[in-house]
């Protein structure tokens, strides 16, 4: 089959590789019909994520048609499914509590050591995202082996356009969980840092959960326009002082809840910022940590901080005092995709959530390297690249 493989920094190629097969009884094989490039894929592209190997197949936002099933899969050939980016077993204690991204069994045993050492516990597996998240081949390919297919993929009704449901795989549930973690109450004002795909879905989700006002913060004009389209007020941090603007806009109270979705595009585990303090201070330690600092400082007393943005290691100058003294609640975590998929599929079908607005570019899988280059170099206009095998 053809698949987008990582070969090194800024070097991704569409290669011909062996087709995947059923290996374990709960597996299925899907023929990919649509797959997206995620902002976090750019960190692989930029060479920031350790434990990558040349030839690794990328992609964790994908969907397709079931073409083969293992003996214990509950899927049927011909079904159209969207696959969660988190690989979770459905059988362990955490899956039982719907904490799917904390699944005990999603990672091969040998791949659990890094997270065990770094975080104290291994987490769920991820598709196409380095060997410390399992080394699973990803979805920017013609075919994918999907483990635990009886609990992961969600079946899509016939006749629904791929583009409407593709983002159930990651960014829509991630934006929704970000808003849920903000514990929004009717009448709340919610501030969202970052208007990437997750931030934009968090804006929509916050309104659906009863927020009266949402204030979106970014510096890309096109992305702020999209937030405005969904009813958000906006702050361009290159043109205005964020804390001061928020204080005036909220009558000196501050937002009731704040959501940091900057750097959210990164699902990665930035071990390099643990191992390399210099890189940490220049890459993760300044800009990215800045948004969480600013969010905590701006949040009203007794308010809620939701942090879908991914942080992998340690950050300097974390305002722990403000968190404590103001009595804030902080909720965070990788997305429990499987938990949110059914309700969000319904919301899409009922027209409550708009997903397709995000897609700026559609390309053939063969053109994926061009897609990476465009996405990296023009984030204002390129909001989402969807790849389709056989599109041309």
């Amino acid at each position, binding site marked *: 089959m053809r698949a987008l493989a990582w070969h090194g920094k800024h070097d991704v190629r569409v290669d011909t590789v*062996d*087709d*995947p*097969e059923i*290996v*374990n*009884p*709960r597996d299925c094989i899907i023929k990919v019909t649509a797959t997206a490039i995620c902002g976090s894929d750019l960190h692989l592209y930029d060479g920031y994520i350790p434990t990558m190997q040349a030839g690794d197949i990328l992609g964790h936002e994908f969907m397709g048609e079931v073409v083969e099933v293992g003996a*214990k899969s509950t899927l049927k050939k011909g079904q159209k499914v969207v696959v969660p980016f988190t690989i979770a*077993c*459905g*059988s*362990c*204690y955490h899956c*039982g509590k719907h904490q799917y991204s904390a699944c*005990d*069994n*999603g*990672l*091969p*045993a*040998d*791949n*659990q*050591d890094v997270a*065990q050492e770094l975080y104290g516990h291994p987490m769920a*597996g991820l598709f196409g995202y380095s060997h410390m998240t*399992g*080394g*699973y*081949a990803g979805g920017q390919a013609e075919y994918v*082996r999907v*483990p*635990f297919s009886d609990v992961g993929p969600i079946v899509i009704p016939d006749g629904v356009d791929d583009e409407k449901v593709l983002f159930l795989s990651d960014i829509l549930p991630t934006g929704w969980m970000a808003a849920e973690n903000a514990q929004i109450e009717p009448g709340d004002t919610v501030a969202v840092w970052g208007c990437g795909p997750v931030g934009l879905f968090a804006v929509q989700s916050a309104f659906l959960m009863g927020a009266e006002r949402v204030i979106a913060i970014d510096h890309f004009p096109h992305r702020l326009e999209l937030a405005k389209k969904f009813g958000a007020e906006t702050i361009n941090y290159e043109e205005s002082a964020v804390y001061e603007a928020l204080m005036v806009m909220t009558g000196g109270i501050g937002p009731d809840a704040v959501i940091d979705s900057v750097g959210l595009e990164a699902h990665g585990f930035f071990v390099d910022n643990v191992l390399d303090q210099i890189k940490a201070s220049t890459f993760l330690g300044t800009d990215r940590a800045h948004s969480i600092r600013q969010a905590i400082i701006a949040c009203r007393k007794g308010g809620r901080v939701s942090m879908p943005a991914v942080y992998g290691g340690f950050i300097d100058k974390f305002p722990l005092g403000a968190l404590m003294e103001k009595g804030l609640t902080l909720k965070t975590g990788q997305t429990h995709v499987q938990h949110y998929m059914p309700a969000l599929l319904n919301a899409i079908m009922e027209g409550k959530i708009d997903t397709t607005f995000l897609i700026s570019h559609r390309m053939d899988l063969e053109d994926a390297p061009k897609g990476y280059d465009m996405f990296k170099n023009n984030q204002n206009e390129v909001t989402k690249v969807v790849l389709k095998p056989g599109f041309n």
Partner: protein
Amino acid sequence: MHDTKPHGDDAPPSTWKKRDAFAESGIPDGKGGSLVARAVTINRPVSEVFAYFRDFTNLPTFMENVERIDILDNKRSHWVVKAPAGKTVEWDAVVIEEASDRLIAWASEPGADVANSGQVEFRDAGARGTVVTATIAYDPPAGIVGKLIAKMFQREPAIQARRDLRRFKQLMETGEIATAAMNRKQHEEELA
């Protein structure tokens, strides 16, 4: 396991910083001077977890370096374990203590290539399933035997025990052992 605590806390002997933990570990007929303990909670009933483990012919399915276990009689078994260059190390192990759904303790018999002993405890954890705690004593090896044991335990026994217990948990909870292999050929190469 032992009545007196040398320093008054409840931490397991394998985690003690100062004392010679092994002497206090309570492992019957211990072999060797190093001690490692790992615990895992398995979301299945204790009777099921114990029964699977007690059938020693099942162990090679999740202990990746164990090639084969031959049952000699109800207490004794012959272990064949992978070593470098396609070689193997072997020993006879004898069950020296056993309590149904609670405990299995073993020790290698004289003449073992790698002397070892240990115990696996099973504890009903109610809604959480079963807590399985493996405690292994072994001789920190040197020279050629050191190389064998390094291969046998990949890096060190603590890591190997942890990985084997993870695989045991995966098998009991999900019915399979997680792998990123894309196809059966890759999977076979991983297992080889």
